[in-house]
């Protein structure tokens, strides 16, 4: 009975903690702006197929490069497709792929980092050298190589992005683990004879979770940047799909007379990335973690 009560109390306080964090985040102007932009984009991603005024792939040569009008709010592109429709649909693929990619990055990067920090010694040395080596290969070269050889399907992009953006999390998780590992409660857990697994699950994860989550939120915005750069270079999602990176690269050649076709996706992508970034910043501040001293690795 008693144990049960304690458990329930913890549950409740975790929920209370979460809402408290969100309130703290929203209490700063930058956090409030970031959160609202992010929420707006997420709602848009869920609802856009139902509110889109036109068909995103309907090609009509008679409507080529029309300026914004009452019928076509953001004008039309070089194939006569409605830019407004394509813009509000453009974030769906990017958001989905990078969200699941970040989850994968968080999981493998976090767990490997904690494991290395805990066991130390030779295994740690070897793993960290390999992580360093991966870090020194520019992400764009590695990603381009993978997608050009394995294709650009979602099943390739999510694990590939998850893998390449997780290696930086390994370092953060390892450093956070080093910070707690010498604390008394870990020493006493060892003295009680707990297994490594139990120590990781019950003692370390609750203490390093915040640092890893903040890192993951940051990765999300970088991954979005990386993913849209791939699309922009023509190595991301394939053409009929509405995607901001792809739209910008298509409309770029004609922007001297049809600037609307390039401005709309630029606003969409920039606002989402800024929204995620401000949210990650506010999240870090609400948890009391300073992320501004960290380099993007």
């Amino acid at each position, binding site marked *: 009975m008693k144990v049960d009560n304690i458990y329930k109390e913890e549950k409740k306080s975790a929920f209370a903690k979460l809402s408290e964090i969100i309130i703290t985040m929203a209490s700063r102007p930058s956090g409030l702006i970031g959160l609202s932009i992010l929420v707006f984009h997420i709602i848009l991603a869920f609802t856009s197929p139902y509110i889109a005024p036109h068909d995103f792939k309907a090609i009509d040569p008679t409507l080529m490069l029309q300026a914004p009008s009452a019928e076509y709010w953001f004008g039309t592109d070089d194939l006569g497709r409605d830019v407004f429709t394509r813009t509000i649909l453009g974030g769906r693929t990017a958001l989905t792929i990078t969200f699941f990619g970040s989850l994968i990055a968080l999981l493998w990067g976090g767990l490997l980092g904690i494991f290395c920090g805990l066991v130390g010694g030779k295994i740690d040395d070897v793993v960290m*050298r*390999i992580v*360093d*080596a*991966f*870090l*020194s*290969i*520019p*992400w*764009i*070269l*590695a990603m*381009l*190589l*993978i997608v*050009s*050889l*394995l294709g650009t399907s979602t099943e390739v992009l999510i694990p590939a992005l998850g893998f390449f953006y997780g290696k930086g999390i390994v370092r953060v998780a390892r450093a956070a683990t080093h910070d707690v590992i010498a604390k008394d409660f870990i020493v006493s857990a060892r003295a009680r004879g707990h297994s490594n697994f139990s120590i990781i699950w019950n003692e370390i994860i609750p203490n390093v979770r915040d640092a890893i989550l903040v890192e993951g939120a940051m990765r999300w*915005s970088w991954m979005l*940047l*990386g993913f*849209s*750069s791939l699309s*922009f*270079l023509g*190595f991301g999602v394939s053409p009929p799909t509405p995607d901001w*990176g792809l739209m*910008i*690269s298509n409309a*770029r050649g004609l*922007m*001297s007379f049809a*600037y609307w076709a*390039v401005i709309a996706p*630029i606003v969409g*992508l*920039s606002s989402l*990335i*800024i929204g995620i*970034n*401000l949210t990650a910043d506010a999240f870090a501040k609400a948890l009391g973690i*300073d992320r*501004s*001293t*960290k*380099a*993007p*690795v």
Partner: protein
Amino acid sequence: MLFLIIKRILLGFITLFIVSIITFVGTEVLPGDACTTYLERQAFGEQLEACYRRLGLNVPAYERYVSWALNAIQGDFGYSLSGEMPIKDVLGPRIKNSLVLASAAIFIGIPIALILGIITALWRDKLPDVAISTVTIFAMTIPEFISATLLILIIAIWLEWLPGIVIVPTDVSFLELLPNIILPVVAIAMIMTAHMARMVRSSVIQVMASEYVQMAILKGVPYWKMVFKHVLPNALLPAINVVALTIAWLLGGVVVTEVVFNYPGLGRLVIESISNRDLPTVQALAIILASIYVSINLLADLLTLMLNPRLKTLQIRK
């Protein structure tokens, strides 16, 4: 001290060694080798055999790795697949062009970043900080290809001040390159400056809050003397490493920027060689870019070691 330096250099070489294995295995393990991707549908029978022999793909992988690595150390990366040219001849002018771009951005970016970082830190949460920080967040988070595209749209197309796209041969002289290079340099410098300014800011803020600075204030040291003599030397030291990481990270961004401006540098070669499935060139590029990354970090580590008085005394005490 000497031991530490040697250790860092050795670690750098070990990292490069692992990178070389990763790129070699990576290009090896992924489906399709250089010949099948190059010949596509004609990849069978005699043609395939001939291609294997020409590229030396008919010997076991580890032997190929050893000979490739030994040649790569001497700067010989073999022949590219599509152009039939020695890769080092292709790389030479590209590396030069990219270096011009990157170093111009760094020379412009670092002083501006220092000034902005210090201003925002000293006037923390006041108007200058809020204004500059807002701008740096925008400059930092917006993808390179967006800021580059906007620069072309506004400066080159609407205002018609500068050429928007670089149309020059690969081996052009520096003076001819100059007007073409301004916009790409601005595009790269903008993001880099924003990143560095934010790091300098938080570093300075940390030092300003430390006890010895409080002590200096209590002792009555004049404000600006304190800033320049006590705060900045200590604040900029940890920033060196972070700045190095930022520069190295931007290698990826330089690739995109070069593509947007059609700039004949390493970045565009990355895209070209990958589009052509030119795996020997891709391997060479991976090693070169990783070497740049490792040496920038090494340089930063050594600089920090040399400038940090605490590390020196640590060694003496030992």
